[in-house]
C-alpha cells in the first residue's frame, strides 16, 4: 500500500527528531512517534514539526549555562550604572538650560522650526522626556531590590518597561533617517546602548531575578522510568 506523501514527511521529521535527542531522551522520541500515529492525518506534519522543535530545544538546553542570579550588592551597582546616566540625560532634556521646561513659543520658532530636522528634534525631546522617566523608576526598582530583595514580580510590567525604551529608540532612529537633521546618525548607537538597551536589559534582569524557585528536583532514584 502506498504511504501518503505527508505521512512520509512526518516520519522523516520524527526520525530527525529522534536522532537529535540525547540517548537518555530517546524514549521520548519513541513516545512522540507513537503518538503521531493517533494524530489526525491532516495535523500529522504539524505534530511532527513540533516534535522536531522539541528535539532541537532539548538539544540546546544543556548548552545554556548562564546564571543571572546576582547578589543585592551587585544589583545595586548594576542599577546605578544603568539608570544614573539615563537620569542625568532625562534631567538635562527636561530641566536643562535648553530643556523642555524652558521652551517657549519664540524658542521653538527660532531654534527648531526654522531648521531642517528641527521639528524632529523637538518631537524627540518630548518623547525622550517621557521615556527618560524609566531612569528614576528603574533606579527606584533597582534600589528596592538591593535593600528589600523585592524585584519586579509582574512579568508583564517588566516586559513593558523594557520594551518601551527599546521600541521608542528603534522607531526614533528610523524616523530620524527620514525627518532627522543631517549627520543625525552620528553617535546614535552609543545613545541607543546607554539610554535604551542597557536600562531595558537591567529591567529584564530585575524581572528574571524575581522568579520564584521551584522545589529542588527529587533524587533520581525516585524518578519514574518508562516501562
Amino acid at each position: 500500500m502506498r504511504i501518503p506523501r505527508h505521512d512520509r514527511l512526518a516520519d522523516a521529521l520524527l526520525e530527525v527528531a529522534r536522532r537529535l535527542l540525547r540517548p537518555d531522551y530517546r524514549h521520548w522520541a519513541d513516545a512522540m512517534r507513537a503518538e503521531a500515529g493517533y494524530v489526525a492525518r491532516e495535523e500529522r506534519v504539524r505534530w511532527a514539526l513540533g516534535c522536531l522543535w522539541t528535539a532541537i530545544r532539548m538539544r540546546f538546553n544543556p548548552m545554556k549555562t548562564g546564571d543571572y542570579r546576582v547578589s543585592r550588592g551587585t544589583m545595586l551597582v548594576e542599577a546605578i550604572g544603568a539608570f544614573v546616566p539615563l537620569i542625568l540625560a532625562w534631567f538635562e532634556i527636561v530641566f536643562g538650560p535648553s530643556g523642555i521646561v524652558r521652551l517657549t513659543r519664540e524658542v521653538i520658532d527660532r531654534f527648531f522650526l526654522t531648521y531642517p530636522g528641527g521639528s524632529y528634534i523637538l518631537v524627540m525631546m518630548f518623547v525622550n522626556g517621557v521615556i527618560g522617566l524609566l531612569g528614576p523608576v528603574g533606579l527606584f526598582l533597582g534600589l528596592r531590590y538591593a535593600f528589600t530583595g523585592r524585584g519586579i514580580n509582574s512579568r508583564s510590567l517588566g516586559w513593558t518597561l523594557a520594551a518601551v525604551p527599546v521600541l521608542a529608540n528603534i522607531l526614533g532612529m528610523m524616523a530620524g533617517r527620514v525627518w532627522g537633521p543631517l549627520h543625525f546618525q552620528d553617535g546614535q548607537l552609543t545613545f541607543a546602548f546607554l539610554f535604551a538597551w542597557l536600562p531595558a536589559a537591567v529591567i529584564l534582569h530585575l524581572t528574571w531575578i524575581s522568579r520564584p524557585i521551584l522545589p529542588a528536583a527529587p533524587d533520581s532514584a525516585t524518578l519514574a522510568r518508562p516501562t
Partner: protein
Amino acid sequence: MRRPSGQTLNLLRALMDEPRKWHHGYELSQDTGLPSGTLYPILMRLSDRGYLEHKWMASPDAGAPPRHAYRLTAKGSAYSREQFALYKDPGAKPVSLASRA
C-alpha cells in the same frame, strides 16, 4: 528554578482534572491547546523533576501501536495544588531568590 509558565499551569490543570487517569500526548494537546513543540518539553521537564510518571500502554485497538501515557506523581499533584493556590491568590508573593538569602 523558574516560575511555571501559564502553559505549564494549563497542562498541570489538565492532568489534575483526573489525577489517577493515564493521559496521552495528543489528548493533552487537544485539552490544553498546546502544540506538540510546547507540550513535550514541558512533559519532559515535569518528568525530570519527578512530577510526572509515564509508561507505555497497549492500545485497546487491535494492531495499533502502544502509546506513552502520563500522570502526575504524588509530588507532582502536591506541587500543582501549591502552584494553583499561589497564582489564584493575588496577594501571594512568589518566593524570590533574594528573600531566601
